[in-house]
């Protein structure tokens, strides 16, 4: 095998390569767009990369079925463009989507803040074909939207970071593009006020697409002004200004025009009633620019801790944590997913201390995954955190599907 990596032309070849690796005791590391090398524990140094770059393209797309079957190496944005040409979309908004592949995003379970409204990858994936390390290509599920025929084995591969097999193709549920999108930005002097309004909106019947609280540093709100973002789009400037002004609440709507308008109106009233400053309502191109910028915020730092908790727990965390850390924060209060972002100014000791403190505080009430961290931090803390109680079963599943331990060994939870 070449050290420069493998690039099978089809899934059958990928499975044969995996079988050969298994016989040779070689580890394989699946690679899509290589946009998330920072995720998880490091790959074993001797692991050979196996790329999905030649497993690319849409295999089956009948727009009126509202489903699509794609090969894993298909670019996420390429797929969105193809669906968009038919007035449809895949309703997920992962951060750092530029260059990412469908297979990679599935393996990383990279969702965004739209998940509370439209579902996460596990809710959108209808079926999969996967290359196993015994040389077989196996499928589960199908391409219809309801299916209880056999086990949903494909759900095991979502978020498994390629440790059970190489995802070769997936069938996904898609939706008609919303008629309209809008964003309301508001800022609050106190984070607690922002949280209260955010929870009111999340618990209302307004059906927002996303409700996020952003807390930046006053001197550089998420790099929105310092050039890491595309400069000059008015939507981004509005976002930057809202973040600079205090705790920012960003509420997104996607749907029929009268529903978006009603949502914006009601949010405005809630903000006014709670003493917040209503900042901007973004439409059309401004909305698009801010929408994309918001999507990317959660991973825009050198160290990022992703906390998944219940919505109420997440809201409490946002209120309490901000004072303590000095870091930035992006919190999806609908799904209960909070990203804490620490810049270089926060030393490795501090990051380790904060991660450990949060983990022990939460216990089993949240999972705290260090998405990104410098090596000095990774050496001292497990990026995944303590093993879940069902870890023995996870190990049994790994042994059942990848007995030769070929697929991405060591990178996942509990060194799977």
């Amino acid at each position, binding site marked *: 095998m070449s050290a420069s990596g493998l690039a099978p032309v089809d899934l059958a070849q990928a499975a044969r390569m995996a079988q050969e690796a298994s016989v040779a005791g070689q580890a394989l590391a699946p690679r899509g767009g290589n946009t998330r090398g920072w995720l998880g524990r490091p790959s074993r140094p001797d692991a050979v990369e196996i790329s999905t770059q030649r497993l690319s393209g849409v295999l089956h797309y009948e727009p009126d079925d509202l489903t699509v079957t794609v090969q894993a190496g298909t670019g996420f944005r390429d797929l969105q463009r193809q669906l968009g040409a038919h007035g449809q979309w895949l309703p997920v908004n992962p951060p750092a989507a530029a260059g990412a592949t469908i297979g990679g995003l599935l393996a990383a379970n990279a969702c965004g803040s739209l998940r509370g409204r439209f579902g996460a990858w596990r*809710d959108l994936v209808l079926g999969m074909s996967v290359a196993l390390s015994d040389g077989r290509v196996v499928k589960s599920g199908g391409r219809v939207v309801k299916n209880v*025929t056999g086990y949903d084995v494909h759900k095991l591969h979502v978020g498994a970071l390629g440790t059970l097999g190489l995802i070769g193709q997936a069938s996904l549920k898609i939706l008609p593009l919303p008629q309209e999108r809008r964003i309301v930005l508001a800022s609050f002097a106190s984070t607690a006020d922002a949280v209260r309004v955010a929870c009111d909106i999340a618990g209302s019947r307004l059906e927002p697409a996303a409700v996020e609280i952003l807390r930046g540093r006053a001197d550089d709100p998420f790099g929105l002004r310092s050039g890491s973002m595309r400069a000059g789009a008015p939507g981004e400037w509005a976002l930057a200004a809202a973040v600079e002004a205090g705790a920012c609440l960003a509420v997104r709507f996607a749907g029929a025009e009268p*529903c978006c308008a*009603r949502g914006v109106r009601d949010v405005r009233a809630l903000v006014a009633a709670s003493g917040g400053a209503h900042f901007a309502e973004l439409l059309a191109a401004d909305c698009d620019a801010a929408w994309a910028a918001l999507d990317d915020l959660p991973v825009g730092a050198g160290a990022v801790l992703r906390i998944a908790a219940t919505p109420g727990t997440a809201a409490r965390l946002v209120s309490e944590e901000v004072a303590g850390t000095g870091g930035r924060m992006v919190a999806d209060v609908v799904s209960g997913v909070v990203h804490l972002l620490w810049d270089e100014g926060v030393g490795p000791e501090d990051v380790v201390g904060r991660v450990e403190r949060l983990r022990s505080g939460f216990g089993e009430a949240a999972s705290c995954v260090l998405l990104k961290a410098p090596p000095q931090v990774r050496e001292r803390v497990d990026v995944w955190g303590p093993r879940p109680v069902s870890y023995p*079963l996870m190990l049994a599943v790994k042994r059942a599907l990848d007995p030769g331990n070929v697929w991405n060994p060591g990178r996942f939870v509990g060194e*799977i």
Partner: protein
Amino acid sequence: MSPPAADRVRRLVESLEGVLGKRWVFHRDEERLAYSYDASLARARPDVVCLPGSTAEVAAAVRAAVREGLPFVARGAGTGIAGGSVPVAGGLVIGLARLNRILEIDLADRYAVVEPGVVNLTLDQALGQQGYCYRPDPSSQKVCTLGGNVANNSGGPHCLAYGVTANHILGVEVVLPDGSVTELGARHVDPLGYDLTGVFVGSEGTMGIATKVVCRIARSAEGVRTMLASYARMEDAAASVSAIIAAGIVPAALEMMDGPIIRAVEEFIGAGYPVDAAAVLLIEVEGLSEGLDGAVRSIESLCKARGARQVRVAGSEAERQRLWAGRKGALGAVARLKPRYYLHDGVVPRTRLLSVLQAIADAAARHRLTIVNVFHAGDGNLHPLILFDPADADETHRVHVAGEEIMRACVASGGTLSGEHGIGLEKNDMMDWVYSPEDLEAMQRVRSAFDPEGLANPQKVFPARRGCAELRADGHGGRPAGEMWI
């Protein structure tokens, strides 16, 4: 029963009685008979039945069965249509009826924790008082249990907009087949590690027994509009379904009923359906009030453009409930048409609805059978009901042949064997129509990770190569068709 087997059963009874008390352990013939069926045609008697009252007792019961090498089968309300809770290999039936408490409802955290024997509608009603709901709504929701919903990944009319059971389960406490207790998932999204909850839901009791279920709860919609579109031709109704989906509208529910169903419903329930129609669509849109009128107008004009004779919007909540009572009670109404029916649960891509409905009509004509349709059209989830008289052996044979042809048409269209009822005993021998031996073997390996001995609900889901005759030998009694739902 061979003597060693009889010994094992006797020892099982003794140890169960030791743990649960005699009151909750049953092994007399008539008691075993009561647990020998579900709503499918399959029948098989368990050796022993027990009704544990706690997770610890479920675990003890499982340990007692596996210690004797006997299989165990969990049972909820027995409304399954695929034989999933029928103890085809004998052994122990573990009824979960006593585990029927809602343990926790946390509105701020958007979850509820329930025991498996809680009835679906009971949870929904408890939440409804507070403006929240549990989304999956199987037609049997008045009686089916959430544990059974988890086992079968149950659907329901409103899955079109909100997804199936798997999309609404955050975690489960499970008694594994070795009698140990573990927790899969969490109360929040994205628990660490593999999505074991995702694969457990829908595994039909073959990976263990859920003893607690963490359900995601949702805010109920602000407004709802329900309409009934009636047609002189079934194909116009099917074309309207495709047109609605193609126009970018995803209603909360989009159900179809054909002429014979409409007339049976009217006679039995009186839902206000037009009895001279060849088909009706029951369409519901939900959401913010501002969006509803526009959605109703669009749907109305799409339906009329495809030949709807009339589109009626329910003018009151009472009228809406009546329209739904007809749909949810349709299966019971059909029981008036013929002594029995055979029900399928195929799914097809939505663009293939019309051609597969035609294939069903062709099969009916070819085999001289009456086939009626009531189904989740928006999802492409068909429910053809083949009516027959079990006393007529020739007709009964033709029912099986036609049923197989219909399922083959579903699969050939890019669809699959079951959308919401499960595989159970009924369709396990068809699994190789959609999966290769390698696919099935990989699924079996996952099962083995949970259940190495294969004692959790054996002979289900995977091909067992039994004949139909054996399965359906003791016939057509059991649960009256009037107590079935789809």
